[in-house]
C-alpha cells in the first residue's frame, strides 16, 4: 500500500511522462491481448463433453507468450515507478516464457478453428465471449457496409432493410435484403454496440479489425524500432568510440543506406517474397535494417563528445575496462537522443507500414494493419476515420513518450531533491 502511494506520488511529479507511457502501454497491451478482446471463438464454453477454451486453444506458441505479456505491458506504468521494477522487468517475461512452454507441453500445439464455426454450432450451450464477439476475418454477409450501430441511420428492420431507407454517408448503397443473422454470443440486431465502428463490405466488424490491425501496426513499429536501436547502438557506438577506420566505414554505410529509399526497399523485399504469414516480421526487419542510421548517427556524435569528457577520464583513472566505461558511463549520458530517436522511429515505422499497406504491398488478407484498413475503406467515411484515428493516436503516443523520456533521462531536468 505504501508502495502504491509512492508510485502515485512519482506519477504526480511527472504526469506527462506517465500519461504518455500509460497510453503507449495501453495500446500495446490491447494489441497483445487482441485474442481476448475481439474474437469469434468463445473464451469459454461448456460442451456436454466438458469445458473448452476455444479462443485460447487456437493460439500458437508465440501468441500465447505475447498474451501472457499483456498484463505486464499494461501494468508497466505501475511497476516502472516502483521499487521492484528490475525484478518485474525481467522476472515477468521469464515467467511468461516458462508458462507458455508448459502450456505448449501440457495442452499441445494450437488447434485450427475456422472462423464462425463455434457460433453456429453452439446452439444453446453456455459460452462466454470476448467483449467484441467478432473475429477479424469473420464475415456476416447479412450486414455489409453497416455504419456504426450507435448512429440512428444504421437501424435495420426485421427484414434487414435500413429503417431510414438510405445510409447518409453511404452514397446510396444497395440495401441488404436478407434478415440480419444474429448468432450466438452476439449483441442484438440494433444494439448500440453490435458494430460500434461499423462493418465492411463483407460484413466484417470494423472494431475487431481495428484491434487486430493495430496489433500488427504496433508490432511493426516496436519490432522495427528495436532492430534499429540494437543495430544503431552497435554500429554508432563502434564509430563514435573507436573513431578512425571504424568511423569511416560506418559513416559510409550510413550514407549508403540513407541513399536507398526506405519505401522502395520494403516494396522490393515484399515483392521478392516476404509476404505470407511472416509479413509483419519481414516489414519490421526491413524497416529496422534501414532505420538504424538515425540512431547510429546520434550515438556516434554523442560518443565523440563523451569520450573527451572528464568523467570518462576519471573512470579510466579508476582502472575500468573500456567496455565498462562505454556501457556504464558513456551510454547512459547518450541515452536521451537514443530514446527520442527510437520512439520517433517507432511512430515513423507505423506510418511507413501504413504507406506500404496503402500501396497494397503489405499484409495479406484477412490480416490487416491500420494502414491497410484505411486503404480498404475508402468508400465510407467510418472505415477511414476509425483506423486513421487509432493510427494517429499510436504515432502521437510514441512521440510523446520519446519526448517525456528525454526530459526524464536528464537528471539536470529532473525535479526535486535526492
Amino acid at each position, binding site marked *: 500500500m505504501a508502495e502504491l502511494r509512492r508510485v502515485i506520488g512519482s506519477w504526480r511529479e511527472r504526469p506527462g511522462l506517465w500519461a504518455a507511457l500509460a497510453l503507449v502501454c495501453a495500446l500495446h497491451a490491447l494489441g497483445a491481448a487482441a485474442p481476448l478482446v475481439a474474437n469469434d471463438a468463445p473464451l469459454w464454453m461448456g460442451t456436454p463433453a466438458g469445458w473448452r477454451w476455444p479462443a485460447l486453444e487456437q493460439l500458437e506458441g508465440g501468441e500465447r507468450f505475447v498474451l501472457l505479456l499483456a498484463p505486464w505491458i499494461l501494468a508497466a506504468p505501475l511497476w516502472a515507478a516502483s521499487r521492484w521494477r528490475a525484478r518485474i522487468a525481467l522476472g515477468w517475461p521469464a515467467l511468461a516464457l516458462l508458462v507458455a512452454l508448459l502450456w505448449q507441453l501440457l495442452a499441445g500445439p494450437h488447434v485450427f478453428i475456422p472462423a464462425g464455426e463455434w457460433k453456429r454450432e453452439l446452439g444453446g450451450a453456455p459460452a462466454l465471449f470476448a467483449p467484441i464477439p467478432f473475429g477479424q476475418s469473420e464475415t456476416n454477409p447479412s450486414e455489409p457496409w453497416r455504419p456504426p450501430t450507435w448512429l440512428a441511420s444504421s437501424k435495420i428492420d426485421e427484414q434487414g432493410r435500413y429503417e431510414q431507407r438510405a445510409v447518409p454517408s453511404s452514397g446510396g448503397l444497395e440495401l441488404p435484403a436478407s434478415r440480419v443473422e444474429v448468432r450466438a454470443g452476439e449483441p442484438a440486431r440494433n444494439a448500440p454496440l453490435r458494430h460500434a465502428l461499423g462493418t465492411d463490405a463483407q460484413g466484417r466488424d470494423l472494431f475487431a479489425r481495428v484491434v487486430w490491425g493495430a496489433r500488427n501496426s504496433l508490432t511493426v513499429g516496436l519490432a522495427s524500432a528495436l532492430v534499429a536501436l540494437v543495430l544503431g547502438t552497435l554500429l554508432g557506438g563502434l564509430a563514435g568510440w573507436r573513431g578512425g577506420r571504424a568511423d569511416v566505414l560506418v559513416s559510409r554505410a550510413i550514407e549508403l543506406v540513407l541513399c536507398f529509399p526506405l519505401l522502395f526497399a520494403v516494396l522490393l523485399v515484399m515483392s521478392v517474397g516476404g509476404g505470407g504469414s511472416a509479413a509483419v516480421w519481414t516489414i519490421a526487419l526491413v524497416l529496422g535494417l534501414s532505420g538504424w542510421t538515425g540512431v547510429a548517427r546520434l550515438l556516434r556524435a554523442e560518443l565523440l563528445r563523451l569520450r573527451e569528457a572528464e*568523467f570518462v577520464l*576519471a573512470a*579510466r*583513472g579508476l*582502472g575500468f575496462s573500456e567496455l565498462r566505461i562505454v556501457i556504464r558511463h558513456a551510454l*547512459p549520458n547518450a541515452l536521451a537522443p537514443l530514446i527520442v530517436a527510437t520512439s520517433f522511429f517507432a511512430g515513423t515505422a507505423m506510418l511507413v507500414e501504413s504507406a506500404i499497406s496503402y500501396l497494397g504491398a503489405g499484409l495479406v488478407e484477412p490480416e490487416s494493419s491500420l494502414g491497410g484498413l484505411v486503404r480498404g475503406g475508402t468508400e465510407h467515411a467510418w472505415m477511414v476515420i476509425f483506423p486513421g484515428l487509432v493510427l494517429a493516436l499510436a504515432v502521437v503516443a510514441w512521440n510523446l513518450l520519446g519526448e517525456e523520456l528525454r526530459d526524464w533521462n536528464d537528471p539536470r531536468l529532473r525535479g526535486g531533491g*535526492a
Partner: protein
Amino acid sequence: MSALLEISGLCVSHARGTQRFLALEQVGFALEAGEVLAVVGESGSGKSTLLASIPRLFADPESRIEAGSIRLAGRELAGLPEDQLRALRGSSIGLVFQDAQAALNPVLRVGMQVTEGLSAHAADALALLARVGLPEPARAAAAYPHQLSGGMRQRALLALALARRPKLLLADEPTSALDPVLGREILALLCGAAEREGMGLVLVTHEIGLALRHAQRVAVMYAGRIVEIASAAELARQPRHPYSAALLAADPARTRRGERFAAIPGSAPAAGEHRSGCAFAPRCARARERCTRERPLLESGCACFFPLEVRP
C-alpha cells in the same frame, strides 16, 4: 628500501597539429609513503602533464612519454603494457580531479559511483562517504552530482579515489574550483587521509601558500622543468631559485603589511617555444650572460647558476 614513487629523467611530449613539443623535460623526484609533495608553478608549466604521465592517462591520446622512468614501489611504469597499467589505476594510483562537477558522471547516483567496481565487502557507500566528512552520507549517496554543493561534490570525488585505498594519490588542483575556506578544509582532509593511511600524495597547485601549508616537500616547476625542490620549511625560510623567490613574493597571503606584493615581470614562455639557456632568463633579475647560453640542471635541489644565498 626504495621510495614509493621514483621519477627520473621524465620527458613527455604533446602533439600540436602535426608538430610535437616537449611539455616535460628531465623531470625527476622521489616520494616516500605517507609523504605529501606539492608541485607548484604557473599554469602551463606542465604540472598536469606530470601527474597524467604517472598513470599514463593523458587527455589527448597523442601525448606520450619520450624518455625517463617512473617507478611505483620499485615497479617500472613507463614501458608497462596498457592492460597491466590499467590494473594499477584506481587500485594503486588514485586520482583526484580539479572539477568534481565534470569528473563525476552526471547521470549516476553518487553512492553508485563511489562503490562501482568494488568487491562486495568494501562496497559500503555510506561508510566511504562518511569517511570524507560528508554530513549526511545517506542523502549524498542517493543524490545525483548536480544535487550536491561544490564542497560535497569534491568530497564525493575524494571518496571515489580513497575507496580503493591506493598507495599513491595524485591530486590536480583539487580545490581551485572551491572558495578558499572550503578548499583548505578539503586539503586538510586529503593530507590527513594520506598521512593516516600511509599513502603518498602528489598535490598539484598553483598557489604556493597552499603548498607550504599542507605539504612536507615542494617542487617548483617552470616551463616543463623542476627548478627547485625542497622541504616546505626550507623553501618558506629561504628559496634558492629566483623563480621560487618570485613566486613567494607574489603570494598575496605571505605579503606582510606595508610590504608591496611583487608580481613577476614578463610572462612564462609559450608551450614549445624553443629556447637555449635558462628558460627563466628573460624574466630573471639575476640573469647573466651564462644563463642565456647554458641550461642549468637540477643539482642539490636547485636548477640555477646563481642561486640566492642560503642564510647561515
